[in-house]
């Protein structure tokens, strides 16, 4: 495929002047929530729900007892909680306002939609600017809308699951998202419907000091299958930007959900995302997660294996450059017998970058015959790079097998000499070695993404070696 049609390395490169009809200002109070509810035209139950979440958010402490240091610098008063053009999502690219359209064109979104996607949702600051899905899928009963529309039009499906996989009080950022959420996707795939092409969401932060709190709920009914991909970018600003999404997945009996993230936020973005899926009997949930951007990422995709023989998987790649901390990992909760999970995490630390793996594998009491395999490998590019591993494993069931392997390595000088002796520059040799290190994981990404991932790594290597 032509690489120019697909680029997610626009980190920090461009932004457009603000052009918002709605701006809730700085800080989060009850008045802010009223402003958001009025702008969105939300029902009273939701207004009360948000306010209740705000009270819980205010009452909960920051998770400083375990979280990385950098989180202390996050000032909730210096964040803007709702910025929107004030129009419903367009279904046609031609109607999308020019600045927004040009942004997504630069990211190659319309071309990709034509080339290989079943549907697209493109979010610009707080609201969806464009949302469209193939007509054929609509006829099969597939729902793919933003969260506002989902709660309005499909309350009977959305509401019973809303906040059920990730409760309000799960942690402080969950409470924050429940209070301030806007945008994100609501997806329902009916029984037995299998999507052959992925659905794609784009999250774009354009404005300074923006807080983006998308809310995604994906329900795959019995035997349904889908792949959902999200890409994230933002321009680089001096002030902090906050991205704190909540993503809930529900895979009913025999359903399969694959959720792919390629995150390339600018380094002033705090990326604090909660992702959790509920896998019922014989269902399968896979998180494929790639974190390249943001200054501080805290993200540990989870699967609650709730039904017998359910399967969960997390495939994670993170790249930490100077000034970046990628605190990523995975959680697997084995809440039914004979469930299995697999975690493969690879991180690359460049320069003074830091990558951490934080994992939890929990086989609950009486859950017999469960299996987990965890493998985390870290590659350090320089002597100043750093990596940490914090695994937590708890097994309370019988006849369960849990396996954890970890490795830390440096790019081998002998290998670089070998590659350079064949004519590759040091940067090219380094890129090739790093690409080789994550090659088995990159294969898990859709082709268009894997091409782009390799290109991003080449760029990072060129930058780091000069």
């Amino acid at each position, binding site marked *: 495929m032509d690489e120019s049609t697909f680029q997610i390395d626009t980190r920090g490169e461009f932004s457009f002047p603000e052009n918002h009809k709605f701006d809730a200002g700085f800080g989060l109070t009850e008045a802010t929530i009223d402003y958001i509810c009025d702008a969105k035209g939300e029902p009273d139950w939701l207004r009360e729900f948000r306010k209740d979440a705000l009270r819980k958010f205010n009452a909960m402490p920051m998770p400083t007892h375990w979280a990385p240091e950098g989180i202390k610098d996050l000032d909730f008063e210096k964040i803007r909680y709702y910025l929107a053009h004030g129009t419903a999502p367009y279904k046609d690219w031609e109607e999308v306002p020019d600045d927004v359209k040009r942004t997504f064109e630069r990211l190659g979104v319309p071309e990709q939609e034509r080339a290989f996607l079943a549907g697209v949702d493109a979010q610009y600051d707080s609201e969806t600017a464009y949302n469209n899905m193939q007509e054929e899928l609509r006829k099969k009963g597939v729902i793919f809308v933003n969260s506002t529309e989902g709660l309005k039009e499909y309350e009977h499906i959305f509401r019973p699951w809303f906040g059920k996989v990730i409760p309000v009080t799960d942690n402080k950022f969950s409470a924050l998202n429940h209070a301030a959420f806007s945008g994100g996707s609501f997806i329902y795939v009916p029984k037995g419907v299998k999507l052959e092409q992925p659905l794609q969401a784009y999250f774009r932060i354009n404005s300074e000091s923006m807080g983006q709190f998308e809310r995604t709920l994906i329900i795959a009914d019995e035997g349904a299958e889908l792949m959902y991909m999200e890409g994230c970018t933002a321009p680089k600003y001096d002030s902090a930007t906050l991205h704190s999404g909540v993503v809930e997945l529900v895979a009913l009996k025999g359903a399969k959900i694959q959720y792919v993230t390629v995150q390339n936020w600018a380094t002033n973005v705090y990326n604090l995302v909660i992702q959790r899926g509920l896998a019922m009997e014989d269902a399968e949930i896979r998180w494929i997660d790639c974190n390249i951007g943001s200054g501080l990422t805290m993200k540990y995709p989870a699967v609650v294996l709730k039904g017998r023989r359910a399967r969960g998987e997390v495939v994670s790649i993170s790249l930490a450059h100077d000034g970046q901390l990628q605190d990523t990992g995975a959680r697997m909760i084995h809440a039914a017998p004979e469930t299995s999970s697999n975690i493969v995490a690879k991180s690359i630390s460049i320069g003074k970058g830091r990558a951490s793996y934080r994992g939890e594998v929990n086989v609950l009491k009486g859950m017999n015959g469960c299996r987990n395999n965890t493998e985390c490998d870290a590659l350090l590019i320089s002597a100043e790079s750093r990596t940490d591993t914090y695994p937590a494993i708890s097994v309370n069931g019988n006849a369960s097998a849990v396996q954890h392997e970890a490795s830390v390595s440096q790019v*081998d*000088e*002998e*290998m670089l*000499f*070998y*590659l*350079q*002796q*064949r*004519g*590759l*520059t*040091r940067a*090219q*040799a380094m890129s*090739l*070695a790093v*690409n*080789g*290190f*994550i*090659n*088995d994981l990159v294969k898990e990404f859709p082709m268009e993404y894997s091409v782009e991932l390799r290109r991003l790594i080449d760029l990072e290597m060129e930058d780091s070696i000069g």
Partner: protein
Amino acid sequence: MSLIIKDLHARVKDGATILNGINLEIPKGEVHAIMGPNGSGKSTLSKVLCGHPDYEVISGSAELDGQDLFAMSVDERSRAGLFLAFQYPVEVPGVTNANFMRAALQARMPKGEELDAVSFYKEMRSKMKSLDMDPRFTARAVNEGFSGGEKKRNDILQMMMLNPSYAILDETDSGLDVDALKIVSEGVNAMRAPFRSFVIITHYKRLLDYIKPDVVHVLYKGKIVRTAGYELVAQIEQQGFDFIKSEE
């Protein structure tokens, strides 16, 4: 046009001096063999010429077709036409042989020009066939899980693909069985040309029976102590290196 080494002294970085004044001239089109007992500095010489970071040049010079070799980076030396078939070829996990060779060839293209993928694969396949290599090796990671012999063969394949003007073969015969040795030698012989030279480092006559050198050098204690024609190989085979040691 030749590779000219003058009074080369080199050591392990911050360590022992290994090369004590090497003088060598390797004109284009010739095959030179370097023999010598263990620890005489044969492998060090090849690594120093290619710029291995573990070694440093103390004094002396090396010229490759008139260019100052020691002023160039490892990869510049490669692109200038210097190739080393490693004594121990390195494993590169996750990088396929095909991708590695494409990248290496692409690195030799002028800026803005793309390597043609179709003719590349065609060439790689045909060269693999000549070395009796399984065509599926294109998709396997470089040297990963290869036997010793497969690794050596893979290095020779890389040499064939990169078409160097000066190729150093560092104990390429070790780890090869008789059949593989024959195949590899045929590959090297097929590449012999007026515009290409070979430096063959070996302990054994066996390889030199297949690839007949024009000149044979004996390296001992970091110095070239004897230079002669092919007949020197037979003498070493009969007498070992003792006659050189006793001349000390």
